C-alpha cells in the first residue's frame, strides 16, 4: 500500500491537538481525569459528547463501513444496536446506578452485595471483556498507520499501543471530559464531510443504489493490477479473462455450499464443477479464468480490465449485488439460520453496551440521577447522528472500489476511498480528515479501556489484594505499570487478529458483556432477592459460556474436525458465533435459580434499594436515618 503524507499529517495533527487540549484543560482546572475524586459537575450536554467520543470506537468509524461493503444490509444491525444499547442503559440502569454512586461494575458488585469476593470475580470479567474489546481497536490502529505510512501492520499496532500507553501512564488524556467531547466533534466531522463530498461527486444515495441495481455483480470501474501471493484465493462470478504478467499456477477449488445470499450459480452446470482440484496455468498475455474459486500457487501480478467482475478474496463471500442489498444476505444468511443469527446479534449488542468496562465510569461525573438519564438520552441522539454516515462508505466502496474485496482491505474502505476517488489536493485533504477521525476513534477508546484495565489491575489486584498496605504513591506506580502490561498484552494479541473483521470482533466483546454484566446490573438494581452467590455464578458462567462459543468460532479455521462438525450442525455453529441469545437467558436463569434456592437473610437489601431508587432531593442518600 502506498503511503500518503496527508494521512500522516492528519495523524500527527490529531495527536498534537489531543495532547495540547489535554494540557490546556488540565491547567484550567477542568480536569476530571482522576475519577476517584471526580468533580461531578459536568453538564449533560458536554458529558454526552464526551461519552459519545469515548464510545465511538474504530468499530464504528472504520468497521461498520467495511462490514457493510462486505455484507450489505445485514450489517446495519450493528450500528442500530450500538445506538439502541444506550436506550437499554437509559431505561434500566443510568439513574439508579448514579444514585448508588457506583461507577465501575466491580464497585457495584461489591457495594450492592457487600461482598469483596464478588468484586474480584467482577474484576476478572472486566479484564476479559476489556482485552476482547481492545483487539479490534488494535487492528484498526494497525491498518490506519499502514495506510498512512506504508509501514507493515505489526509496526502500526505496536506504535499506537506505545503512544496510548504513554498517554495513559503519563496521566494523559484518558479521562478528561473536554478532550473526549472534542474527539466526538472530530469524529462526526471526519465521517460526514468526506462522504458528503463523495456523494456530490458520485451521486446521491438513490443514484448509487440505482447503479448497484443495474449490475448483477460488482465490477471493476477501471483496470487494476493485482499482486498475488501463493495461497491467495479468488472467487469469480463468471468466466473472466485475466492478464497475467508471468505464468502463474492456480488450483481450482471445489464449489462451496452456497447458503443464503451467495451465488446459487456457483458450482452449477456453468460453474467450475467440472474441473475441481485441477491445476491451471495462467500464461501471459491473456487467459480465461473459469467461474468459481481458485487458489494461486505462485506469486506474481495479474491485471483485470475495466468492467470485469471483481474477484472476491477469501475474507468476503462472493455475493451478487441483489443478495448484498437484500436482507439475509451473506452475513445473516450464510449460516443457514438468518433469523436466529439476526436476533442473537441484536440482543448481544443491545445488552452488551452497559457491560463494557469504560462506559459507566463517565456517568459518575453527572451530579444526580436526573442528569445521568438526560446524558444517556443525549448520547442516543448524538450516536443516531453519527451512524447515518458509515454505511454510505460501504455502498460507495462496493460501487467504486471493489478491488478492496480482492485485496482483503474492506476494513480500510473509509481510509482509502477519498484518495482513490479524488486525485490531487482534495483527495489528500479528505484522506487527512478521515485519518484524523480514525485516529481519534481508536485512541479515545483504547485509552478509555486502558484506564479501566489499568485501574482493575493496579487498584484492585495490586492495591487491594496483593499489597493492601501500599502507599498511594506505590499504587500510582502500580497503575502505570499495569497500563504498560495491559497495553503490551493487547498489542501482542492485536498482532494475531489481522484477518478478523473489526466489527465482528467488537460484536464478540459485546456478547460476553451482555451475558455476564447485563443480568448482574439489571437484576441487582431491580430485584431484591438477588444474592451474591447467584449473581457471581450467573455472571461468570454466562460470560464463560459466551467466551467458549466465540473462541470455538475463532479456532474453527485451524481445525478441520471442528469445521466439519460445525458444518453438520449449522444451528450450533450460528449459536457459537453469536452466543448471546442463549447465554443471556442462561445467565439470568442461573442468577434467579441460585438466589431462590439459597436465599440471603434480608439484612441490608432494603437499604441498597433505597439508595438506588429514592430521588436525591429527599436527602436520604448520605445518612439513611435523618435524625
Amino acid at each position, binding site marked *: 500500500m502506498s503511503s500518503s503524507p496527508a494521512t500522516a499529517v492528519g495523524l500527527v495533527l490529531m495527536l498534537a491537538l489531543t495532547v495540547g487540549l489535554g494540557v490546556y484543560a488540565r491547567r484550567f482546572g477542568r480536569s476530571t481525569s482522576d475519577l476517584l475524586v471526580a468533580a461531578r459537575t459536568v453538564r449533560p450536554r458536554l458529558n454526552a459528547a464526551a461519552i459519545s467520543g469515548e464510545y465511538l470506537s474504530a468499530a464504528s468509524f472504520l468497521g461498520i463501513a467495511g462490514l457493510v461493503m462486505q455484507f450489505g444490509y445485514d450489517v446495519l444491525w450493528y450500528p442500530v444496536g450500538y445506538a439502541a444499547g444506550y436506550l437499554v442503559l437509559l431505561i434500566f440502569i443510568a439513574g439508579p446506578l448514579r444514585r448508588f454512586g457506583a461507577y465501575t461494575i466491580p464497585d457495584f458488585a461489591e457495594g450492592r452485595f457487600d461482598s469483596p469476593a464478588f468484586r474480584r470475580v467482577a474484576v476478572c470479567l472486566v479484564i476479559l471483556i476489556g482485552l476482547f474489546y481492545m483487539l479490534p481497536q488494535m487492528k484498526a490502529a494497525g491498518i490506519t498507520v499502514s495506510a498512512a505510512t506504508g509501514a507493515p501492520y505489526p509496526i502500526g499496532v505496536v506504535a499506537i499501543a506505545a503512544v496510548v500507553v504513554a498517554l495513559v501512564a503519563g496521566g494523559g488524556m484518558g479521562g478528561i471530559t473536554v478532550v473526549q467531547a472534542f474527539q466526538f466533534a472530530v469524529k462526526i466531522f471526519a465521517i460526514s464531510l468526506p462522504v458528503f463530498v463523495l456523494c456530490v461527486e458520485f451521486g446521491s444515495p438513490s443514484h448509487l443504489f440505482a447503479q448497484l441495481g443495474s449490475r448483477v455483480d460488482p465490477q471493476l470501474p477501471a483496470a487494476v493490477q493485482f499482486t498475488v501471493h501463493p495461497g491467495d484465493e479468488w472467487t469469480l462470478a463468471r468466466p473472466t479473462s485475466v492478464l497475467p504478467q508471468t505464468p502463474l499456477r492456480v488450483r481450482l477449488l471445489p464449489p462451496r455450499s452456497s447458503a443464503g445470499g451467495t451465488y446459487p450459480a456457483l458450482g452449477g452446470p456453468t460453474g467450475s464443477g467440472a474441473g475441481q482440484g485441477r491445476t491451471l496455468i495462467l500464461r501471459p498475455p491473456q487467459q480465461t479464468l473459469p467461474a468459481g474459486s481458485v487458489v494461486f500457487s505462485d506469486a506474481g501480478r495479474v491485471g483485470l480490465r475495466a468492467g470485469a467482475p471483481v474477484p472476491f478474496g477469501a475474507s468476503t463471500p462472493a455475493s451478487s449485488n441483489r443478495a448484498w442489498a437484500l436482507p439475509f444476505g451473506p452475513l445473516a444468511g450464510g449460516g443457514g439460520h438468518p433469523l436466529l443469527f439476526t436476533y442473537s446479534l441484536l440482543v448481544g449488542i443491545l445488552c452488551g453496551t452497559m457491560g463494557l468496562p469504560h462506559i459507566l465510569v463517565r456517568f459518575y461525573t453527572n451530579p444526580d*440521577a436526573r442528569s445521568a438519564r438526560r446524558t444517556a438520552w443525549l448520547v442516543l441522539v448524538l450516536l443516531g447522528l453519527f451512524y447515518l454516515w458509515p454505511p454510505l462508505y460501504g455502498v460507495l466502496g462496493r460501487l467504486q472500489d471493489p478491488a478492496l474485496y480482492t485485496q482483503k482491505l474492506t476494513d480500510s474502505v473509509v481510509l482509502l476511498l477519498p484518495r482513490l476517488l479524488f486525485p490531487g489536493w482534495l483527495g489528500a485533504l479528505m484522506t487527512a480528515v478521515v485519518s484524523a477521525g480514525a485516529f481519534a476513534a481508536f485512541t479515545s477508546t483504547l485509552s478509555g479501556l486502558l484506564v479501566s484495565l489499568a485501574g482493575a489491575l493496579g487498584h484492585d489486584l495490586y492495591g487491594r489484594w496483593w499489597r493492601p498496605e501500599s502507599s498511594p504513591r506505590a499504587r500510582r506506580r502500580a497503575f502505570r505499570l499495569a497500563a504498560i502490561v495491559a497495553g503490551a498484552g493487547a498489542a501482542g494479541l492485536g498482532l494475531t487478529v489481522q484477518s478478523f473483521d473489526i466489527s465482528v470482533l467488537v460484536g464478540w466483546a459485546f456478547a460476553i458483556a451482555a451475558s455476564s454484566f447485563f443480568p448482574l446490573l439489571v437484576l441487582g438494581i431491580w430485584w431484591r432477592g438477588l444474592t451474591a452467590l447467584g449473581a457471581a455464578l450467573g455472571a461468570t458462567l454466562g460470560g464463560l459460556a459466551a467466551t467458549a462459543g466465540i473462541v470455538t468460532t475463532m479456532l474453527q479455521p485451524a481445525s478441520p474436525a471442528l469445521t466439519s462438525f460445525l458444518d453438520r450442525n449449522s444451528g450450533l455453529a450460528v449459536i457459537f458465533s453469536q452466543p448471546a441469545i442463549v447465554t443471556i437467558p442462561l445467565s439470568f436463569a442461573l442468577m434467579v435459580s441460585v438466589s431462590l434456592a439459597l436465599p440471603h437473610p434480608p439484612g441490608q437489601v432494603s437499604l441498597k434499594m433505597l439508595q438506588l431508587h429514592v430521588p436525591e432531593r429527599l436527602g436520604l442518600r448520605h445518612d439513611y436515618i435523618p435524625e
Partner: protein
Amino acid sequence: MEVGPSPSDNEVSASAQIDHLTELAEQTRVGEVYLAALMRRQLRLSLGVAVSLLAVLGVQPLLDRWVAYRQAALFSIPVPWLVLGLLTYPLLVVAGYFYLGRSESIDDEFGDLMR
C-alpha cells in the same frame, strides 16, 4: 405494625410529611411499601419502553421475510435500508424522550408525596 402516630387534626400535614420520610428512611414496613411502589412504577415504565424497543427492532427481521417489503424501493433505495438505517434512530430517540419525561415525573410525584 403501627409505627407512625395516627394523624390528628391540626398538625396532620406537617407530621404526615415527616412520617412518610422517616418511615422510608427507617425502612419500616410502611416505608418498604412506599419504596416498593416507587420501584414498581419505574420498572413498569422501563419494561414498557423495553417492549416497544423490542417491537420496533424485533419486527424488522420478520418484515424482512415478507417479499413485498424486502423488495420494495423508494427512490431506488431499498425500503429495508431506509427503515433500519434511517428511520429507526429517530424512533429510538423518541422512545428515550418519552421515558425521560415519564421517569422524571414518577420521581417528582414520589418526592412530593414524601415531602
